[in-house]
């Protein structure tokens, strides 16, 4: 019997915009596969989903997924997403953006949203560089790496993103690589069910820029590198998961904890202060 099977990712894509702009061997498309599998597995209501991205290669995800999607300004996906969520708490709001966008220009918003425990699901695709603009150094670029703006090797200490967001207050923190497709999809499905600020870092190749400049081969070489260097350490202390240019890559689910999310805190405070006078709008209505 001949099957008329469809690629499970296609119903979630704006097929009229495929092929996408990402390079051969880039891992962003791989993360989108994991994302769509997670959507299916978690049975989350697709109508309730909104995806917000910033600027950069990963930011382009918003334009390819068939969801209510918002391609916003550089670094500001999280505050936009915060507004969406607060205006309509029934939305499941995903932020899908890159390492430069989220931790450099967006860094302030990252830590405050984590502090507040806004109910957002943040997928941070980390290719260790600003890829879209030509491969400049980012706060995540490991020391000694060559980039367009560190032509003699980066000398800035780089961010340990899981550590940063855990310290700021995130309730779910994980790191995977694009090699770890099944674990990544599982983590993504888990965060759809978890209330609060959830953060998944995904290491991904940028063969055109980061890997090329650092003579680390192409996308496939990088995937093999991830396979070789990764060590799954669920529950590892995030202070110990920093990255170096050639060293061990600790992956896993590092943090899963419970804290009341922003919405719950807000409601609790108002109920305590105002009692019956508090008007709780689960949906802020536009008149």
């Amino acid at each position, binding site marked *: *019997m001949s099957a008329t099977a469809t690629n499970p*990712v296609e119903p979630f894509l704006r097929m009229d915009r495929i092929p996408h702009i990402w390079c051969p061997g880039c891992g962003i*498309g791989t993360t989108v*596969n994991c994302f769509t599998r997670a959507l299916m597995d978690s049975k989350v209501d*697709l109508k309730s989903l909104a995806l917000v991205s910033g600027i950069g290669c990963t930011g382009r995800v918003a334009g390819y997924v068939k969801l209510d999607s918002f391609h916003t300004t550089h670094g500001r996906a999280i505050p936009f997403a915060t507004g969406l969520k607060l205006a309509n708490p029934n939305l499941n709001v995903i932020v899908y953006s890159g390492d430069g966008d989220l931790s450099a220009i967006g860094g302030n918003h990252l830590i405050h949203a984590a502090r507040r425990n806004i109910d957002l699901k943040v997928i941070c695709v980390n290719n260790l560089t600003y890829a879209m603009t030509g491969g400049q150094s980012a706060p995540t670029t490991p020391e000694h790496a060559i980039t367009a703006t560190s032509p003699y090797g980066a000398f800035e200490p780089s961010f340990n993103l899981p550590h940063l967001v855990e310290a700021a207050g995130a309730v779910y923190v994980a790191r995977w690589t694009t090699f770890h497709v*099944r674990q990544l999809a599982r983590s993504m499905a888990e965060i759809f069910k978890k209330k609060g600020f959830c953060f998944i870092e995904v290491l991904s190749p940028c063969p055109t820029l980061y890997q090329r400049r650092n003579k680390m081969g192409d996308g*496939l070489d990088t995937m093999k590198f991830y396979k070789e260097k990764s060590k799954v350490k669920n529950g590892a202390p995030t202070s110990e998961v920093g990255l170096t240019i050639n060293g061990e890559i600790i992956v896993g689910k590092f943090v899963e904890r419970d804290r009341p999310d922003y919405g719950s805190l807000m409601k609790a405070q108002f109920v305590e202060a105002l009692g019956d006078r508090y008007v709780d709008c689960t949906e802020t209505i536009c008149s």
Partner: protein
Amino acid sequence: MVAKGTVKIVDERCKSCGFCVEFCPTKVLALSSAFNAKGYHPPYAVAPEKCSGCDLCGMYCPDFAIFGYKNGPAATQEVGDEG
């Protein structure tokens, strides 16, 4: 030997990254010598009988150019849009 799964390839989308070939657990795939319109060598099932339909290739493919599915009674797997 009847394959447990089938792999479906959209040649024109492939950019020969090689992920599917490398990470197929049963080594079903190899890059072909044929070209697509962009000049890339898409994969083909060199050992289709070994396909389990695990869809790891589909999960890895950054270009949405390949996926695998399990054969059998549920041969038509259409993932509907639940929105």
